[in-house]
């Protein structure tokens, strides 16, 4: 199971890639595997300020639906609109083309509370 070392993770199976004050967010390889074939990603919170752990969208798979939680507080400045026509990218490339939103961090210190790759590996067992 791929868990890139340079990313941060949540117990809800989101990953975070930090670049300055901007965090790119997606779901992990483990999460997409558990969900199965993904049908669409619904994110209608672009432009909104959300707190850590608030729901920012949902991901619908053939068999199930799952909420998406903010790994950190901030403003959603971009949604990966390519997922509208190609939601399968979340399955095939969860850490790359399958990214979901970019968040402008409002409280960067929250990053310290996220899991590193080893911590996430231990979490999923």
């Amino acid at each position, binding site marked *: 199971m791929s868990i890139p070392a340079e990313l941060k993770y949540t117990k809800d199976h989101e990953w975070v890639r930090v670049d300055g004050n901007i965090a790119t967010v997606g779901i992990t390889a483990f999460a997409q595997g558990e969900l199965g*074939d993904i049908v669409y990603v619904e994110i209608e919170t672009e432009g909104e300020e959300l707190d850590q752990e608030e729901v920012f969208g949902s991901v619908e798979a053939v068999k199930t*639906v799952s909420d998406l939680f903010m790994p950190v507080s901030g403003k959603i400045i971009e949604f990966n609109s390519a997922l509208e026509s190609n939601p399968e990218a979340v399955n095939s490339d969860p850490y790359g083309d399958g990214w979901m939103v970019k968040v402008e961090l409002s409280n960067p210190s929250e990053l310290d509370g996220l899991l590193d790759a080893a911590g996430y590996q231990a979490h999923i067992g």
Partner: protein
Amino acid sequence: MKNTALSDKHIALGAKMVPFAGYNMPVQYEGVNAEHETVRNAVGVFDVSHMGEFLLTGPNALDLIQKVTTNDASTLTIGRAQYSCLPNGKGGIVDDLIIYRMKEEQYLLVVNASNIDKDWDWISSHNSFGVEMRNLSDDYSLLAIQGPKAVEAMQSLTSVNLADIKYYHFEVADFAGIEHVIISATGYTGSGGFEIYCKNSEVEQVWNKVFEAGASFGIKPIGLAARDTLRLEMGFCLYGNDIDDTTSPLEAGLGWITKFNKEFIDSEFLKNQKETGVSKKLVAFEMVDRGIPRHDYRILDANGNVIGKVTSGTQSPSMKIAIGLGYVNTEFTTLDSEIFVEIREKGIKAKVVKLPFYKK
């Protein structure tokens, strides 16, 4: 939790295993969409050995079956099978099942895994006919070999001409080097094929030979997730979702297996219900606006009033649209009725359609 005789095989094949009806079952191998397509276009194999099998023998076996089931089993000749259900004495359904006439005075009842104990107790409690009942569920395995290429792919494994077995007929014959296997032209997918009943001790050999024979036809193992999307595209009911102890066969659209030319448990009640009409009915619907219906989501009218409940829903892998089954008040059951499924607190538009969803 119980294993089937093939659990180790599934794990070795990389299946994701889940607990289902008390059994450790493969829910998917390579992915639900790919497995679904395999069955629609080629041939796939399901291990559904969790299903229960009861053997009823004796001169009064038919009388017992006629009493506890809704369909007319007197029409069954040896070598034929019939879909039926067990009414619960209160207008609901204990289970749905398939009845095979094996011999003059012998029938095989195939029931849902989750209901084996309940069904056994229920049928036993009505056995005032002295029928010998044997529960073979722990001794028998069941493979469903389904898809348009099933006949051609499996022909080399048996001396029976598979193309000659008509839908809902069966043969007891040699298969994959094993004698006395039930080869039944039934299934839960709408894509044709067979169900194979054999002993647990024989099923590994059958499984291996099925995959050898099917290799050049692209045969693959299929999990329970695709079993559900395949049956839902056909509108086949799933016990525990679309039918249960609170739904009547008439409400569920199972009037076609409810025969009033005989007396059975609830026959008076259901006859009366048929005459007075039901207040809710199971309908098929497809989503007009984007959203996927799921079990237990509420169904609303245009004004937001609750008019029913979703019982099954999915994104259809064959048609790439969201589809579902659900009970709605009778006034919303006509074709093209506009209904709304409540998804994350919003009413998303859907319309009532005809079954099956999937047509070749």
